[in-house]
């Protein structure tokens, strides 16, 4: 079985071709020693529609696999789905490849992965953002993204000088609006705490109306125009929940000539895409990478049995969290303390991030 590490090829085709010319005369290497001993465990993943490089949840899962490969020495394999038609065949390919665990990413795969789990009781599956229909060999991973988004909303309102903050989504689906709703109530909470009116543009959880691109195309002109519209409505913090929209938002900010910032989603964008760090306030992390890594480690290394219990990522277990704050306008220590207080409140159940 081949160990797939295609994502490590950063400079590929073009640089590769250049390398053939430029570096073709390098000395031949001595046989390499692998740093981590290989483990006889195959972890696999099937993506939701879209690629592994979506700077969003697909990518987070994939990085979990890569981390497991690099640090634990497990072998990994993967398949991207171009359309719903590919879900079942991709899962089947993993079963055929005798994967020890197969991670199905995304709510859309829930039906396919449940079918696969039922048909292959000897294999183990994980569904991210999905649920198990009574299959003991299927482990759901879910996230309460509204919790960290609540913190983001609170922080955004604190940061904002106009006291107008904006958010918009890729498509109007619960996986997206969960973020936006938490954000909304977080911002409102800051307003209530400080006796100031805060306006959230782009989403109203009461009427369930808001701004959506209509798809998850990265950095489209539509996305930029939505951001521009929110900036024109005086928003100075923008929270785009639609994968990689940071190019579009940062350009809208630059163009509007205002000192606005944006909030990342799923991963710590300041780290993963440092080119945008100058505009980032923080990011709302969905730490699938760790969840995936932990599950693999638990079985492959620690030798525990696979279980079908649901894993829910929360602030409490660190499955979701706010990234380190950058570019904050006010007293950062004070707001960090306040956010910690809110975190404790949410964990304790005193604060409901959904209103």
């Amino acid at each position, binding site marked *: 079985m081949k160990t797939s590490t295609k994502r490590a*090829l950063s400079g590929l085709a073009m640089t590769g071709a250049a390398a053939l010319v430029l570096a073709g005369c390098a000395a031949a290497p001595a046989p390499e020693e692998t740093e981590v001993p290989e483990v006889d465990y195959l972890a696999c993943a099937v993506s939701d529609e879209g690629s592994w490089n979506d700077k969003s949840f697909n990518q987070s899962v994939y990085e979990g696999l890569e981390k497991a490969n690099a640090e634990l020495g497990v072998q990994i394999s993967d398949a991207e789905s171009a359309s719903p038609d590919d879900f079942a065949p991709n899962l089947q390919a993993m079963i055929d490849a005798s994967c020890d665990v197969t991670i199905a990413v995304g709510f859309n795969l829930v039906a396919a992965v449940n079918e696969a789990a039922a048909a292959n009781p000897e294999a183990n599956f994980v569904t991210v953002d999905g649920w198990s229909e009574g299959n003991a060999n299927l482990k759901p991973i879910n996230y309460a993204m509204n919790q960290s988004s609540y913190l983001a909303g609170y922080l955004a309102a604190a940061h904002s000088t106009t006291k107008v903050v904006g958010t918009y989504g890729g498509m109007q689906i619960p996986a997206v609006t969960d973020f936006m709703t938490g954000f909304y109530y977080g911002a409102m909470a800051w307003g209530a705490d400080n006796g100031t009116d805060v306006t959230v543009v782009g989403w109203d959880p009461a009427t369930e109306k808001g701004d959506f691109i209509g798809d998850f*195309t990265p*950095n*489209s002109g539509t996305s930029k125009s939505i951001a521009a519209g929110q900036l024109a*409505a005086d928003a100075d913090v923008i929270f785009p929940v639609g994968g*990689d929209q940071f190019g579009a938002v940062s*350009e809208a900010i630059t163009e509007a000539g205002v000192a606005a910032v944006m909030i990342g989603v799923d991963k710590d964008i300041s780290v993963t895409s440092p080119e945008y760090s100058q505009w980032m306030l923080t990011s709302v992390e969905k730490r699938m990478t760790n969840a995936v890594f932990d599950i693999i480690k638990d079985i492959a290394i620690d030798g525990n049995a696979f279980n079908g219990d649901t894993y829910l990522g929360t602030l409490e277990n660190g499955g979701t969290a706010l990234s380190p704050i950058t570019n904050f306008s006010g007293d950062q220590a004070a707001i960090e303390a306040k956010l910690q207080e809110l975190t404790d409140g949410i964990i304790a159940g005193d604060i409901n991030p959904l209103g």
Partner: protein
Amino acid sequence: MKTEVTPGMFSQAEIAVSKKTPIVMAGFTAIVLVFFGILGTGDVVVWQFTKPDDTFALPDFTVASNTIGLIIGVVLAAITAYAFVLVSQKKHPALWLSLVFGLLAVIALLSWLAAGNKVQFAFILSNAIVLAIPIALGAMAGIMSERVGVVNIAIEGQLLTGAFLAAVVGSLTDNLWVGLLAAMVGAALLSMVLATFSIKFLVDQIIVGVVLNVLVLGVTNFLYSQWLANDGKNANFPGTFPIIEIPVLSEIPILGPALFENRITTYLAFLIIPALWFFLFKTKLGLRARAVGEHPLAADTVGINVARTRFWWVTIGGMVAGLGGAALTIGSVGAFGRDMSGGQGFIALAVVILGRWHPFSAGAAALLFGFAIILRIWANQVSPGIPTDFITMVPYVVTLIAVVGFVGRVRAPAADGQPYIKG
């Protein structure tokens, strides 16, 4: 005795004039009067013509939404009636009448949508223009190649190539001009493939176009996922061209900021559209190009090299489309994303036909699409409530109505899509 025959040698017959235009107008008038006027709300709408920081700030115009609906509805009814009278007198309603009608209807629509809110006119206009640029440039590429008789289905691929190369080369070299050049050269190379296959190998032009789209999508997706996504900072962070304010002109009230505070990509489009018109209709090269597109054999018999003419017009068209692609990235959002042209090349194809292979009309049609996109975004922001899926449909429905109601049968260059085989 001379038997000279001249145009109009036959006595003129009574012309039957289609009632299509007034009927469509009547439909729109009814919508404006009933929905925007009679059933509209009395909430005020504020028309902001200028931004507060503009040199010549115009005062905001505040009026009740349904009042505008009623007033415009009545005016539209008058125009419709006039159009009916014209048709009954066997006269064609002039184009300007339709344009005025459309403009008024749009004002009514905006006022209805923004009831209780603001119409930021400058924002809408400038966004419409920026969103229209890639479509317009794609359409110019389409016009250039179809005017010489080569159907260009590959506009989508050309836009995508331009967008990709502009972002990547712009990032790697840290020079947007080099990126722009790469986009134009890359798309031109793609066009050369189209030209070579259709002119030299006589492959069905539609097939080549479809295939090129598939290939470009495949290759850019491949490179994006294998390379750009992992090394965004170096390979996919080009930034954008600075916005240049043209002195004096940008201070014209209302239109100034929208037209003259733009990026170089937009200005280039402003230049290319009239330049293309000029070249097509006022120069030797244009005359020859059109001759090749209408009747290649006739062009050949007067010593015009059909293959060469087609090749270069298609290729240079590709450069224009490449520029359009660059406008998607370094002229707007900076970074490249998978499939980011998202069907705009096909819209451009529609714009070519809608604009009847004429640069100005096509430019206007492209603006219609740009306007429709921003209308959806803006309408959703000022008056959330209309299902987003429906608003998304608006540009396409509008185009359909325009094609069916106002454009109808169009006359393509006679040899469009015809390979020229020499004996």
